[in-house]
């Protein structure tokens, strides 16, 4: 429940960030050379960074980026994974085998590393980061959906649907896939945290959103130049990442307990 409250807070920050932030211009390129590296104070609760920008405002506005990255990454991953998994599970045979082999191979390369290789090829930007992470996330959903669809494909109700004259696409969409929704949702809610972590890591590597966009991972990376003396500019963005991911993980855990009671003890 506390996790839901935290996420609600996050959503508020994401939506209303620029209006709530005391120095929203700091997220858009403003620089205050005279206010560099001020420690946390009343005027700047999280201090200022190496360009004099208010860290609190930038963290607040960065919420929007982190949340949208997480959502878009999951949409890409779930979509591709579901399509491929459904085909593999329903059609089976050589095609199914081939798809699952490809899935296994993709999983062999750690996600972060494959994502960074893809981003390096596509070019540094937030959009490319989201695409790259989505492209490495799909195998998980493919496996999940394939297992579900393959299991359901032999059920009587599916046979009935096919006998009733339904083409494969219709049978899949109307009858099989709706039954796969629950595990996918559980998985996706658990993955939200991971997606945000991966995006932050890519941001830390300089591959994500470019200046002056206040992406949390990139903020931690920029703060390294003045670390550890100006500890606040690295600590608070990172803390924001941690708390966001933690909230989603707790939420996902809770959702799993509710929707998939088999896994609780």
């Amino acid at each position, binding site marked *: 429940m506390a996790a839901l409250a935290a996420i609600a807070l996050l959503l508020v920050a994401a939506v209303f960030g620029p209006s709530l932030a005391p120095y929203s211009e700091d997220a858009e390129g403003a620089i205050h050379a005279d206010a560099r590296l001020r420690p946390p104070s009343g005027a700047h609760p999280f201090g200022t960074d190496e360009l004099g920008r208010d860290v609190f405002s930038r963290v607040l506005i960065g919420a929007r980026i982190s949340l949208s990255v997480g959502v878009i990454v999951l949409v890409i991953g779930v979509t591709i994974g579901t399509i491929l998994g459904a085909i593999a599970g329903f059609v089976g045979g050589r095609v199914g085998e081939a798809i699952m082999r490809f899935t296994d191979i993709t999983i*062999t390369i750690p996600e972060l590393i494959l994502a960074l*290789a893809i981003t*390096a090829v596509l070019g540094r930007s937030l959009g490319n980061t989201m695409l790259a992470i989505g492209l490495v996330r799909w195998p998980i959903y493919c496996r999940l959906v394939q297992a579900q669809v393959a299991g359901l494909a032999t059920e009587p109700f599916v046979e009935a649907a096919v006998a009733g004259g339904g083409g494969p696409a219709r049978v899949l969409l109307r009858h099989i896939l709706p039954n796969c929704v629950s595990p996918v949702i559980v998985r996706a809610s658990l993955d939200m945290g991971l997606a945000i972590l991966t995006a932050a890591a890519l941001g830390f590597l300089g591959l994500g959103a470019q200046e002056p966009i206040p992406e949390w991972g990139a903020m931690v990376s920029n703060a390294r130049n003045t670390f550890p003396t100006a500890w606040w500019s690295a600590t608070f963005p990172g803390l924001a990442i*941690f708390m966001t991911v933690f909230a989603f993980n707790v939420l996902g855990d809770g959702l799993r307990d509710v929707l998939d009671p088999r896994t609780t003890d």
Partner: protein
Amino acid sequence: MFVQYVGRRLALIPITLLGVSAIVFLLARIVPGDPAQLAAGDQATPEMVEAFRQEYRLDRPIWEQYVAFLGGLLQGELGRSMFTGRPVLDDLRAFLPATLELTAVGITLALLIGVPAGVFSALYRNRWPDQLARGLALTGVSFPVFWLALMLQLLLAVSLDLLPIGGRFPAAYKGPATITGLYTLDFALARDAEGVGLALRHLLLPALCLAVGSVASITRITRTSVLDVLGRDFIRTSRAMGLPERVVIGKYVLKNAFIATLTMLGVALTYMLAGSVLVESVFDWPGIGLYAFKSIIQLDFQPIAAFTLLVGTMVALVNLGVDVLYGVFDPRIRR
């Protein structure tokens, strides 16, 4: 039977490696813009780009390029790094031992923390130790590992001065004669106890950062398998026969839990190799992770591609090893 099982698993390896190499190859070729430009880098002149194109036969059909790529791979041709100036193969060979050592210590730490936590969780199921362990595990996977590294560095190395800030050993200390490249081993072989101690001290923080993410999954899997084993008949029989609890747990439960934890090793390694890029950069650890980090910062693509290939290969081989060990310990799956 066992030989057949191993044989089957071994046969998958070339396919997996081919697949990984194909992915890396495609990444370098299916590029918006000019692959030769990508390989040559931002600073290349048009003449240099053309030279690259000729050398890497980028004007040939794609399957011909792939065959040439594979041929080059088998000869150890992985390109050249722009910032070290050396062939990438030499760079990777030089930096790999540091990462191997770090990962080994990381996995050890993860097991040392995760397995007891999992056993405790199972024994005190649903009571406060269980809740605490699960809460801590959930916290552990939520940390951005690069931020955790910075915070631990700030707290333990800078503020409290308990551990070194970075590097593999103090600048003033003379390094060991390189035999394996694993400093703890090399110092031990040179009978330098102080050196071993120093190397371990330097390993502790980075390895801990790497371990934190895996502790959660190891805890969870140990807990599940211990609970599973505890519920079985032969455990009740052992207890009914009067065997002390210590023996029941030590002998049967742990052995079965070990098998389940084995499956986590592949996952843990995957996670740690990815994490190495971030953790090594924070602690200035001269491994392949830091090498990849520097290559990424400069968008030096050939080292990035080679690194991806290397890591994919390592994971594939470890997964094979885990599967084989699984077959050794659990005869049921050798069908």
